[in-house]
């Protein structure tokens, strides 16, 4: 309730400010809503949102799967860890913009380069978290698996993944919020569609209404992903924990 009230205050403040300034550089909520409806009708908004979301999902899936495998290997084997760690440090400290530029220059201005650049930005973060999780795996339960001759799929599903779940959830959360910001940059620099592209062209036209409209649409979608997908998944994964006292 308080959250809704707080949000309402924000909108009121915005309306008042827009009316006071009365400039095309700060459009009011009404103008932005109108643009949202207009672009939804013309299907421009859904199209660009879909392009961006698709890139987010694909890049995220790639980063997550590769990061999981690499992080697990590094957590299990000290040798792999020693070999991989310097690479990881470099990747972690590589600015997103540099990755994007390099990808576009080396691979070309295409979808592959865009996806690869985003995935490469997220990848080291997944590796680090998975590695931590793997190091914390219980040796006791591994012995149980050994004695009872559990198969590898069974071990992964019932023993390893439940223990990694909090780490993966952390990677997922931090990932989903960071990755879409990077996708926008990728689109701004070198894609002919997507929210980033629209924001870029709106910027060059000083079209503030469009910038506001697309930003809000995207924020709304990410909030929906968070509350409809991430939080229920987390709740489900931590069902077994005793209710915190």
């Amino acid at each position, binding site marked *: 309730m308080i959250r809704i009230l707080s949000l309402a205050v924000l909108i009121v403040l915005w309306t008042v400010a827009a009316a006071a300034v009365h400039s095309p550089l700060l459009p009011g909520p009404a103008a932005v809503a109108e643009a949202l409806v207009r672009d939804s009708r013309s299907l421009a908004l859904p199209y660009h949102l879909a392009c961006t979301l698709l890139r987010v999902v694909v890049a995220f899936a790639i980063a997550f799967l590769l990061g999981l495998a690499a992080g697990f290997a590094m957590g299990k084997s000290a040798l792999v860890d020693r070999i991989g760690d310097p690479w990881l440090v470099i990747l972690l400290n590589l600015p997103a913009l540099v990755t994007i530029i390099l990808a576009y220059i080396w691979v070309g201005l295409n979808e592959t380069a865009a996806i690869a650049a985003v995935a490469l930005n997220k990848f080291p973060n997944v590796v680090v978290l998975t590695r931590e999780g793997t190091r914390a795996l219980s040796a006791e339960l591994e012995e*149980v698996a050994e004695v009872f*001759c559990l198969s590898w799929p069974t071990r992964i599903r*019932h023993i390893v993944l*439940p223990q990694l779940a909090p780490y993966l959830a952390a990677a997922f959360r931090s990932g989903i919020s960071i990755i879409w910001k990077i996708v926008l940059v990728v689109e701004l620099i070198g894609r002919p569609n997507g929210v980033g592209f629209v924001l870029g062209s709106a910027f060059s036209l000083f079209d503030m209404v469009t910038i506001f409209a697309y930003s809000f649409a995207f924020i709304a979608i990410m909030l929906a992903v968070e509350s409809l997908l991430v939080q229920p998944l987390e709740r489900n994964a931590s069902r*077994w924990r005793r209710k915190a006292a």
Partner: protein
Amino acid sequence: MQVAGAEKLLELRVDSKVYGSAASAPVEVLRDFTLGIAAGSFATLVGPSGCGKTTILRMAAGLDRDFRGERQILRSARVAMVFQEPRLLPWRTVEDNIRIAMHAASMAGDIGEWLDRFDIADQRQKYAGELSLGQARRVAMARAMSIGPDLLLLDEPLVSLDDVVAARLRGELRTIADGGKVGILLATHDLAEAVELSDRLLFLGGKPARVILERRLSIPRSHRDRNTVSALVEEIRAQARSARNDDRS
């Protein structure tokens, strides 16, 4: 000493077991230990805590292969172990904990039977992390039995349980032992428990540990009432004491 005709499930020979770490000097914890387990036999390792019982069980289970000696196990033998801490999967229900083990052993049997036998049917849907220690121990025991083991390794499975539950679990162990198919190796510090259940006692002592006394019990389990057990305990305790003294002198 070997029972004629009975096939050995497990033969363990430990010439020497050394624990060492980078930080401390290596310590030899066990020397010249041999143990054979045949189907239907029930051996117990007795000794104070820290004398190496768990180490031996881990070597018997194949979890610890870092020792000088040899471990031979019948290739088809199915091994189950009840660890000192129950070691259940806290994020799975009681039912699933047992089912996962049964599934891995391709046992198709009814899970309800095991829940009933160990009196945990009411906890069936609970997560293993929500159980009391006594309940968790029973689930661990049910999990081990449910896979139809040929060799059952038990590491102090009855410690810190209340008397009723402990008596019930001892009853279950007796039933399995009387079935004559399963080879059992139990580690305990409770001599009365060992005398009540097993047919061979191995006393461990000294540093590094070795068997200071081996004793066979030929009285059938069904004849071991309370008086017989306590008389035997006294007798064996005296033997063990003198064996320990001989050992020192």
